[in-house]
Structures are given as C-alpha cells and as structure tokens.
C-alpha cells in the first residue's frame, strides 16, 4: 500500500510537462530556483509551486546552503515508477507464453478427441 501511494504521488508529479522538464534539467546536476526558472516563461513563484509538488512526491530535495538552496533529484521513486511499467509488460509477456503452451495442449487434445470421427464441434 505504501508503494502504491508513493507511485500515485510520482505519477501525479510527472503528469505535468513543466515538472518533467525540471526533472530533466536536474538530471544533469543540481540547480537553484532562479536557474530552474530561467528556461521557462514563468514567474519564480510559479516554478516554486511546481518544485513543491516534486518535493512532496519525494522526487527532489533542496540543499541547505542558505541563499541558493539548490534542488537535486532523488532517483528511487523514478526507478520504482519505471519498474512498475516494466512489471506490467512482463506480466503479460510471461502470461502469454504460458498460454501458448496451454493452447498447444488444447490443440493436441482436440485432435485426439476428433480422432477418426468427423470434423466439427462436438459440444
């Protein structure tokens, strides 16, 4: 449940293009609010709002240096979100491989059952 709750926060935080751009910027190193606001046509308070969402989602942290308070990325929640998606894919891929095996069995069985009888559905 805790992981699911964390994922919700991660997904919600990632739903916004500005926040994704901020994360991408932070992926190449920490940056202050002023530095982060620069590439966006946005006021500093607006950027701070986005940073707050990211911080609450545990995706970034702020440094302690009094003036700059640089923001940096926290990798783990992103890794979890990515793992969730991979899990989804693996879930179906592995299930379907098992289904392939079952279908082969069913086909073989149908053949034996059909045996010398005429073709067609028995039931």
């Amino acid at each position, binding site marked *: *449940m805790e992981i*699911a709750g964390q*994922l*919700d926060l*991660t*997904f*919600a935080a*990632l*739903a916004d293009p500005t926040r*994704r751009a901020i994360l991408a910027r932070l*992926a190449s190193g920490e940056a202050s609010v002023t530095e982060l606001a620069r590439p966006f046509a946005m006021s500093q308070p607006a950027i701070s709002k986005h940073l707050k969402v990211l911080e609450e989602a545990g995706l970034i942290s702020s440094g302690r240096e009094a003036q700059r308070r640089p923001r*940096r*990325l*926290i*990798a783990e929640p*992103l*890794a979890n*979100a*990515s793992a969730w*998606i*991979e899990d*989804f*894919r*693996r*879930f*179906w*891929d*592995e*299930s*379907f*491989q*098992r*289904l*392939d*095996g*079952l*279908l*082969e069995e*069913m*086909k073989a069985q*149908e053949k034996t059952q059909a045996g010398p009888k005429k073709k067609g559905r028995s039931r």
Partner: protein
Amino acid sequence: MKNTGTLQVTMPTDNEIVLTRVFDAPRQMVYDAFSKPELLKRWFGPHGWSLAVCEVDHRVGGGFRFVLEGPNGQRMGMRGVYREVEPPKRSVHVESYDDYPGESIVTSVLTEEMGRTTLNATITYPSREIRDMVAKSGMEHGAAESYDKLADMLAAEQKVTA
C-alpha cells in the same frame, strides 16, 4: 503470418494502451482460455505466480475475481465486471486492482486468420496521471529504456555524491 509470440505494446491515443499478440490457435480456443476459470488458472500470471482465487461469471453484468499468488506468498488481487460479451469475437470489461486506485476499461477483440488468432486488447485509463505517465515513459521499449537510463544515471550520480 508473422509475429506469433511477440507482444506488441502501442499507444494509439492519449489515454489508451493496446496490447497485440498473435496466438497459433483458433479463435474459439483463445476465447475459452480467457473466459473459463479452469483454463485461466493454467496460464494467467507471470512466471512463478498462480491464481489462488479465480472466479468468473462470464456474462454481461457478471464479474470476475482473481487473486494471484507469488513465489514468496505475495498476493495481488483484481476484480472486474463484464460490460459486453460476444464470444468468440469480443468482450469489454471494467477492471480494478486492490492495490491501485482507479478503474480501467479493457476491450478485447479476437480476429482469426488462417488458424491463428490475433488478440487486440485496448486498455483505457481513466486517470490523467496514470495515462500521462504511461504515455511519457511508455511501455513501449524505447521510451521505457530511456527512462531506465535516466534512473540508472541518477542512481550513479547519487552514489558519487554520497
């Protein structure tokens, strides 16, 4: 035909994900495997997992309840309600997971060609968060990979600074 055994994942619109998979078997057989509990129990779930609970009432308004059990006793529950049932061509159901919020609509269409059956399952996500997340990082390989790369890079960076 090609691509038997290859799972394809595409995103035709903003809020949909489509799984496509070709099975080397006739359509009725594939449909049965998706709708009969005794058959579902034999394949549903990733490697090492099995259906501890599998109840299916396969008719419009009927529902299903699955509980998957993992190799270490982990449990994952899901349930759904059938909205449309047209054997062996098509079915629509609403599903939700015990551990995730929200419901998604799953439309499954089976087409048969030369004894092989193509499954097209469209999952429609209700929540913008999940939809955008999936659209962005994608269950499509390339996108998922780039996300993994970002995560790896970040993990490496953290090690350096730690």
